């Protein structure tokens, strides 16, 4: 009753403003120059259907050569022993785990863009989501190499799966590494499904436009009989929404669980509750860094300026800025808690991080991850595409160092000073990691050459022509 009378009385209350003047807000167009639907189709399909450009071949061959480093490194590793890497007794996890977390972090932007931004109805995601989903899938593939091969006896790695066996031994479900197996494989499966499912209508377009027989069969097989029927679209949209809902928690869970590898251990500097949110923010940060690194050159090469507009770049820069600041906040919070917690081991671990044996890596990390993205506050900088690209590279470097700092400073200086050590990578470490960039590039180049770079229907749906009222409703 009381509430009712309250609402009654609001009617007599004088309005604060006589008239509400909405601020003028012009939604920036997501496709510039008033392009037609046909132009979009031609542009995206043209990338796949045109003649293979010479630069593509050069890049592909270079990528192959670089990727062979990983292959050779791994063959050497498996035939000889983990000792070919730089790992030693206090630092039992060296670059391998750093690289794993680095790649898996990069793999976060794709699902974030396609799932979370989809649920949040962020229309600007349409022209960048396919590329970043591809990036996600390929990054997770690169990531998977490291935990698999860092184990001492890789031929028994399947023991991590809960397969019934004659010994009646089950994996240890209390181990974060075991959780990783499930988290990463789930994430990979869902990402691939999402990526592929979103691509089906575009594959059908490519099939219908195909002139060569192999194309007809290739895309025809992949398009799974898509006929643009009304019920196809209805099912598609529902499935897309469901998958978006499914992968939203995955975006958060994967890196949370990866962070448990550290947070569940009892070492000072690892054993902190801040890790899950801080790792997720870092992952999104690095993911967007990598999306910028990849898409800006593509935009220039394929002339996609009308599709990946300044608005897109602006938005990505802003997300990078936000997540970079969150990461920076987490860095300072770690120090605060180490002091506030009054645990002398913890306190030592953090001072050692900043000023100890690996101080240089800590400061590389802080300058790349916290200071660098602050430049994105300035519109001038966000509009300077080459500079944005350079900053995105710094973000990638910084995030690699973040994982290096976490893994190595802690392991090299833990409880008993008698067992302190120092880790430096060997040539094999360096080449194996370097090679994964080649592996990633091979996959990405193949993607560019054979699969549609952008979801045609989704891009068209955000164009002014898609609005039957011509944008003049109300």
């Amino acid at each position: 009753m009381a509430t009712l009378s309250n609402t009654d009385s609001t009617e007599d209350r004088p309005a604060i403003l006589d008239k509400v003047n909405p601020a003028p807000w012009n939604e920036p167009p997501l496709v510039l120059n008033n392009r037609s639907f046909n132009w979009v189709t031609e542009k995206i399909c043209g990338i796949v259907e045109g003649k293979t450009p010479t630069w593509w071949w050069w890049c592909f061959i270079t990528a192959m050569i670089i990727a062979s480093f990983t292959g050779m490194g791994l063959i050497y590793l498996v035939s000889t022993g983990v000792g070919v890497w730089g790992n030693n007794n206090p630092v039992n996890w060296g670059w391998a785990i750093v690289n794993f977390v680095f790649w898996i972090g990069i793999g976060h932007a794709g699902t974030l863009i396609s799932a979370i931004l989809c649920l949040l109805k962020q229309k600007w995601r349409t022209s960048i989501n396919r590329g970043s989903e591809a990036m996600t899938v390929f990054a997770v593939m690169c990531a998977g190499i490291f935990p698999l091969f860092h184990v001492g006896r890789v031929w028994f790695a399947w023991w991590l799966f809960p397969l019934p066996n004659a010994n009646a031994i089950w994996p240890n479900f209390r181990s974060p590494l075991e959780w990783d197996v499930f988290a990463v494989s789930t994430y990979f499966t869902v990402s691939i499904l999402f990526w592929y499912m979103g691509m089906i209508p575009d594959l059908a377009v490519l099939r219908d436009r195909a002139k060569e027989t192999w194309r007809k069969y290739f895309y025809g097989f992949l398009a799974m009989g898509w006929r643009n029927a009304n019920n196809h679209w209805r099912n598609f949209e529902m499935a897309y929404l469901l998958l978006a809902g499914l992968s939203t928690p995955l975006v958060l869970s994967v890196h949370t669980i990866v962070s448990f590898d550290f947070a569940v251990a009892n070492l000072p500097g690892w054993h902190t509750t801040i890790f899950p949110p801080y790792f997720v923010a870092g992952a999104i940060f690095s993911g967007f860094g990598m999306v910028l690194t990849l898409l800006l050159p593509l935009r220039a090469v394929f002339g996609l300026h009308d599709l990946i507009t300044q608005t897109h770049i602006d938005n990505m820069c802003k997300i990078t800025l936000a997540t970079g600041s969150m990461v920076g906040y987490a860095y300072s919070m770690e120090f605060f808690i180490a002091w506030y917690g009054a645990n002398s081991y913890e306190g030592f671990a953090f001072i050692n991080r900043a000023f100890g044996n690996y101080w240089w890596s800590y400061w590389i990390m802080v300058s790349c991850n916290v200071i660098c993205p602050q430049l994105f506050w300035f519109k001038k900088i966000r509009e300077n595409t080459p500079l944005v690209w350079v900053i995105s590279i710094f973000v990638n470097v910084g995030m690699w160092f973040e994982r290096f700092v976490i893994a190595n400073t802690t392991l090299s200086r833990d409880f008993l000073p008698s067992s302190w050590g120092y880790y430096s990578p060997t040539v094999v470490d360096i080449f194996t990691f370097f090679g994964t960039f080649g592996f990633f590039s091979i996959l990405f180049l193949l993607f560019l050459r054979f699969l549609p770079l952008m979801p045609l229907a989704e891009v068209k749906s955000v164009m002014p022509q898609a609005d039957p009222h011509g944008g003049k409703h109300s």
Partner: protein
Amino acid sequence: MEGRAIVREANADEYKSDTSFAHHMGAESHSPPIYGKDLDKDLVFKSQTTPRGNSSYEHPDHNYEKSEEHGLHQWGMSIDLNQCTGCSACVVACQSENNIPVVGKDQVLRGREMHWIRLDRYFSSTQRDGAELPSDVQVSFQGVACMHCETAPCETVCPVNATVHDEEGLNAMAYNRCVGTRYCANNCPYKVRRFNFFDWNKRKTDEVYKGPLGEENDPVSAMGKNPDVTVRMRGVMEKCTYCTQRIQESKIRSKVKAQRSKTLDTGKDGKDLVLDRSELKVADGGIQTACQQVCPTDAIVFGDISDPESEVSKLKTNPRDYSVLGYLSTRPRTTFLAKVRNPNPHMPDHAVSPHSAREYHDKAHPSHHDEGHSSQH
């Protein structure tokens, strides 16, 4: 020692006034918020049980006595830091007993030595006098092997269950199950786990393993191996087993002996012969670990801690007894007896308390800082 209470030391005078000085050191001695209502319990209790402080939840008691199928013995060890002279005989004995590979200088420099027991040395001093070497160095030794923690952090993180507890309290390592993630070694706070980075047993003695195509080891070194202990291949983790082969042998021997004497006494044999559980017990001192056996000062004592009369149990009631990093609640089965120094007050480098203890107290109670210093000079 970075002001950490790892080797706990006092001078004889301090010891006289406070025999349990070791209990007043380390984070576990001054962390009231964690211990809550258990604050006043003694240190042995705190580090060997799971104090729940003010938590209102029940916590399963992991104490071995409560375990339904706890073994007949509960193995434990006590190392007297007072008696340790740092001679390293234990390290060598362990190496030959347990077929521990010699890895060579290059690999040692990379931090890949395989010793299951190591002798930690900590140096402390107060005066530097501008000289390169301080003039009043004190050295503290500590032999460290796997502590066989009752709540072992290494066990929970192994994804394939390759390291588990047995019913007699040993932290066992199943080499055949190990895939080599090395997570256990990271999570062991005492850093006692050793990884086979190469196949140390399949190579020429002075080379690292070169893969399947490399040269095989020469047979002579294989002949030097202890036949009771397996050799480990590359890619698996290993660490101190409390000489499990010796434990097993003694258990079998006492069983055979018990059977024989009972047969003689009762005339029964075969199925009719039933042995009492207590008859299977290995007598105290019946098992000596390799490190214990060679220790010239008998600093290492191993035995059954569930038997209150055993030597090791008695040593563990000594007020000097403490657990290293007790505040982690890993409840190590190996505990140490704190070191008591007896310096001559007329010597120029005499200090009222050992440097390492002063370092610790300066760090743990910075407010008493000045006091600590004035007593120095």
